[in-house]
């Protein structure tokens, strides 16, 4: 989008076109030639299955025998089916635990860790980043143990006399979802922190000096210098953690299978059940398409907002 101060006269535009067109066209075709193979592969492994998924989502199909066209019925179940509808609510809660909480904690710890150089900083970073490199299945199994009725968490609560707080975390209708969410917080927190620490070190020290000369305290400094300087990192952290929350599957599958009742069912688990356990391939495709669309919209919105000056 080019904004010109003065509208060009028709003659000028034609002149410019005549001069530029051959060159521009040639480079475009050469570029396309280079991109042809990757584009073909991309089309084959991404676009074709995507189109198929979209197609399936309009059918009622058991995966084997003949299918029937049902229009938007599969999408309508997000409204009509209270269980499927509730999965969207669960995802909102998970976004709070997977994205918002780790980012707030990450900012706080980044601000604290970068204010003064302490010995052993790298060790902290390493420890907090560790969950990010661990396999999610391992993490889920470890936390299943921790949350067990006689697991370390309840034992610890009882040891300090908080017996009344000990509960079956993953079997409790109220606590199962937050308990799962906190696992997510633990996993993504280190990632956010490391991202923000590296971002903070890239902020020009002069800005901090200027702020201090103007009489800013640590809090003011954080909001006036650090936070605006981390806009790019914030966008990355938000996009990755929110889409991770939307796609939550392994954590739930290994710990609760979506239970108790359906209180921890996420769209990804509902998709898996529909696709591979119950023969509702059309519904599974519709859930997948909705999830992909949500991820895309969120990514676009975050990029747009963060890049606006």
């Amino acid at each position: 989008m080019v904004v010109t101060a003065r509208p060009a006269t028709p003659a000028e535009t034609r002149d410019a076109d005549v001069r530029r067109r051959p060159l521009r066209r040639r480079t475009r075709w050469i570029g396309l030639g280079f991109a042809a193979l990757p584009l073909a592969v991309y089309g084959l492994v991404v676009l074709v299955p995507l189109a198929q998924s979209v197609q399936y989502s309009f059918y009622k199909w058991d995966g084997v025998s003949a299918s029937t066209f049902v229009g938007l019925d599969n999408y309508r179940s997000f409204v009509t089916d209270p269980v499927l509808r509730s999965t969207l609510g669960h995802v909102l809660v998970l976004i709070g635990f997977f994205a918002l909480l780790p980012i707030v904690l990450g900012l706080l710890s980044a601000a604290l860790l970068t204010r003064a150089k302490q010995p052993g900083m790298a060790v902290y970073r390493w420890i907090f980043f560790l969950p990010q490199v661990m396999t999610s299945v391992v993490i889920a199994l470890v936390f299943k143990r921790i949350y067990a009725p006689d697991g370390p968490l309840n034992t610890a609560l009882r040891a300090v006399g908080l017996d009344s707080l000990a509960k079956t975390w993953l079997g409790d209708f109220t606590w199962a979802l937050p308990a799962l969410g906190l696992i997510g917080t633990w996993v993504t927190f280190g990632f956010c922190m490391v991202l923000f620490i590296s971002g903070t070190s890239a902020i020009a020290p002069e800005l901090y000096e200027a702020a201090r000369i103007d009489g800013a305290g640590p809090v003011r400094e954080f909001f006036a210098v650090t936070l605006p300087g981390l806009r790019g990192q914030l966008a990355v952290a938000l996009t990755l953690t929110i889409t991770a929350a939307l796609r939550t599957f392994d954590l739930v599958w290994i710990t609760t299978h979506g239970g108790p009742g359906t209180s921890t069912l996420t769209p990804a688990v509902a998709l898996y059940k529909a696709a591979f356990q119950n023969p509702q391939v059309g519904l599974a495709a519709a859930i997948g398409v909705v999830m992909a669309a949500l991820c895309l919209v969120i990514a676009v919105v975050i990029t747009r907002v963060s890049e606006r000056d």
Partner: protein
Amino acid sequence: MRFHKAGVAAAVALSLAACSPGSGSTDKTDAPSTVSTDVAKAGNVTLKLTDFWGAAEGEWIKSVITGFQTKYPNVKIARTTEDWGQLNSTLNLQLQDDSGPDIATANNGWQSLGTLAKGNLVLNLDAYAKAYGWDKKVPTTITRQNTFTTDFKTMGSGSWFSTPMARTSLIGLYYNADKLKKLGINPPTSLDELEADAAKAKAAGEVPFEYGSLDGSTTVLLGLQALLADKKKLNDYIYGDSTVKATDVAMTDAITLTKKWADEGFFPPKFNGIDYQTAVANFVGGKGVFRWEYTGSLGLNAQQQGHFGYIQLPQKSSSGTVGVGAAPGAMVISAKSKHPDVAAAFLDYLMSPEAGQMAADKGLVPAMSPDVKVPASSLSLTGESAGAATLDKNDGYVPYFDWSSPTMLDTLGQNLQLVYAGKMTPDKFTAAVDKDRDTFLAGQG
């Protein structure tokens, strides 16, 4: 931007060009009309068998094959084994292949066997059933598990499309023999006795039933339902007779009793946080007195088998014994097999008392083998084998409840957790079960 549009256009074009999913058709095959049971006359034949049996079950099928080959030296059976999930998901493709297996293990129910029969991939076995007299040999309640009507709208009646074997997998009550002895309790012989024993165990500070509901385990509920429900109605309900409702098959009574046990503290404390694997490990490790379980799922070793017993309780109304059970696989003959007569003879051999004895020798539960000899040192296998014999005699099998609809297992598990938490009444539970099945039946058309 233009490339994006092109991509979308291409994608749309592709999806329009493709026909609707799953519209491929298969040829219609009829039941063989003239069949022979004379295997020796068939000449040298090699049959391909694909099954999903490993460990002790794998050892069993190997000895059955050896037995059959000794009986008919002109037949050779080439066996391939695949992981259960793997075979289930690829069997329909394997059976469409000209060089695919002659005989294979499928799964009962609509998901696997029903789809294969509907797609004409497996033979209608009626002629063989007649020739070998399977109708007399096999309990009717087991026969029904292998039949579909030829319009493929109904399961549980019509033609044979698979056969069971001289083995079974049941839901029943296991007990810790050492604990019972210590508590001075004899193994219960009725539901009332069981409840009294459980109360006694509770009073002595033991956990009566080792169990966890974290992943929605339904064995207690389904085990109890078989003791409370009318056998025929329960079978009809699962096979999709829409005139029978869940209230007619004691679903409300079973869930009410299960909830009562939970409230009386018959289950371990905080059982809602215990998962299936942990509960099994706890029971085998010596926690709890009783446990409702599928046979073969506790993984008892030879030494442990002497310390755990098994009981197939009779019905509360004392109208015989009814239990949840099915053969651990449905044997099918490929429609493409060139030697269906020989394959059928092997299927018949799988149902023979010889095959049953081989099962018992490998520590597996034998069925349809009234004179089977079980090692006395194995308390659990003695009980399991007696349970199967009683069910054979009473013709008292009911299929797994989740055959009634593909989503049933989820529905039971989720709503069971709601009932335990007091968030759902037994009546609502039963209504949810009906809704699940009726929705599925409506979709079947």
